[in-house]
């Protein structure tokens, strides 16, 4: 086992009275892709959002337990949430570029974090777009509106935007579910490339995708982490009957 970039310990999560996550314990290995699978409503997206405190934005939610990033609890009072989300970036299901130019989309984060030097911004934008395997497709139209890009390009732009603030962990919530197979394959290739530099956690309903892109897989069911193991183990010979029933389509 490699080093754990993050570690979730005895995590409970509540929406008001509803306990959405029950005593979750899960390490997230550095430079690995961890996939989270499970039926809708099982808690996997909720879990993903606990990793950069996105749930803080929802009223009447409560967190118990710890989420460690490099050994420090991200829920402790001295943590700056903006700094946390810089380190733990997120990419959503629907590509959500800002109604701005391609360039400004990527430069948005670094500008907020105080970078004003244009040469420096140019460098970050190019590096991020290259990191998201988009630069060659857009280099001649950086000042065009991001909304003119295809869905797959928009999603890679959102990944570039996340990379621009030099995160350490990338959370992806169904990043390819709105894309066609060609664009999906590009995102999957990109994930394989990105894991060399980032720790990636991906929520996906596409189990073949989980099998293709991840090294580790967690199966969630009704707020429980039923099974967490190496991806090949989960898909070849899962230990828990409920995991097997889910991945073979025997329930749901």
């Amino acid at each position, binding site marked *: 086992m490699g080093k754990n970039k993050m570690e979730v310990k005895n995590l409970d999560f509540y929406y008001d009275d509803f306990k959405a996550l029950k005593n979750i314990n899960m390490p997230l290995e550095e430079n690995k892709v961890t996939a989270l699978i499970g039926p809708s409503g099982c808690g996997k997206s909720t879990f993903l959002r606990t990793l950069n405190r996105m749930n803080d934005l929802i009223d009447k939610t409560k967190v118990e337990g710890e989420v460690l990033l490099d050994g420090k609890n991200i829920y402790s009072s001295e943590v700056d949430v903006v700094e946390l989300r810089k380190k733990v970036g997120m990419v959503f299901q629907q590509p959500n570029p800002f109604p701005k130019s391609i360039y400004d989309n990527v430069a948005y984060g670094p500008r907020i974090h105080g970078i004003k030097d244009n040469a420096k911004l140019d460098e970050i934008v190019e590096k991020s777009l290259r990191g998201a395997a988009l630069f060659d497709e857009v280099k001649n139209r950086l000042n065009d509106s991001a909304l003119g890009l295809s869905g797959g390009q928009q999603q890679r732009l959102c990944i570039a935007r996340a990379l621009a603030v030099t995160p350490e962990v990338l959370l992806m919530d169904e990043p390819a579910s709105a894309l066609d197979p060609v664009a999906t394959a590009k995102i999957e290739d990109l994930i394989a490339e990105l894991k060399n530099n980032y720790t990636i956690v991906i929520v996906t309903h596409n*189990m*073949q995708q989980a*099998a293709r892109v991840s090294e580790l897989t967690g199966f969630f069911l009704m707020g429980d982490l039923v099974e967490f193991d190496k991806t090949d183990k989960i*898909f*070849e*010979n*899962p230990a828990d009957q409920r995991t*097997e029933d889910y*991945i*073979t*389509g*025997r*329930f*749901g």
Partner: protein
Amino acid sequence: MNASRRNFHEELNSLQNDMLKMGSFVEESIRRSIEALKNGDLELANQICRDDDIIDDYEVNLEEKCTRLIALQQPVAIDLRKIIVISKLATDLERIGDHTCNIAEMVINIGENNLIKPLIDIPKMTDLVTKRLRKSLEAFVDMDIEKAKKVVEGDEEIDILDQQIISELITIMIDDPTTIEQATSLMFVSRFLERIGDHSTNISERTIYMKTGQRL
């Protein structure tokens, strides 16, 4: 469970049924080959070799169904292991079919000559071998690990019988060199039965893998 997944599992069951039909046909073929030996029935021996085409068709048909299910359904875990194992079992059964044809060829070699000795151990071995094949397929269908393990353990009994038959035939050949040709054919029969037994062991080992994901 949704309709298309239910459909998939029905197809998986039908795949298993096809494999069992092949198994019964092959089992019958073992019995008939020894029947032909006992009775010097050359017509039956020829028929067994012609029937090998039917067994080959079973195998091809099963393989194609396995390939199609993998391509269209992307099975995982137990479903995937089951399909892979059925595809391998089809090969084991096809090989058994080949061996029954090999036995039939020995029957044709012996021709209309009287047998040099009454057949005692070979029918006994045949009985054991067909029972083991049936048990190995039952263990597969019921996913019965204990039954599969018993089949694996029972292989030694067949090996002992094979050795016994061979040493008896050697004694006969030493006593009377004119028996060499037929005795050699009978030795081959014994060895083919022993090989058939090994395929039942394979089937059982694959069953254990299918159920547990572990190799024996």
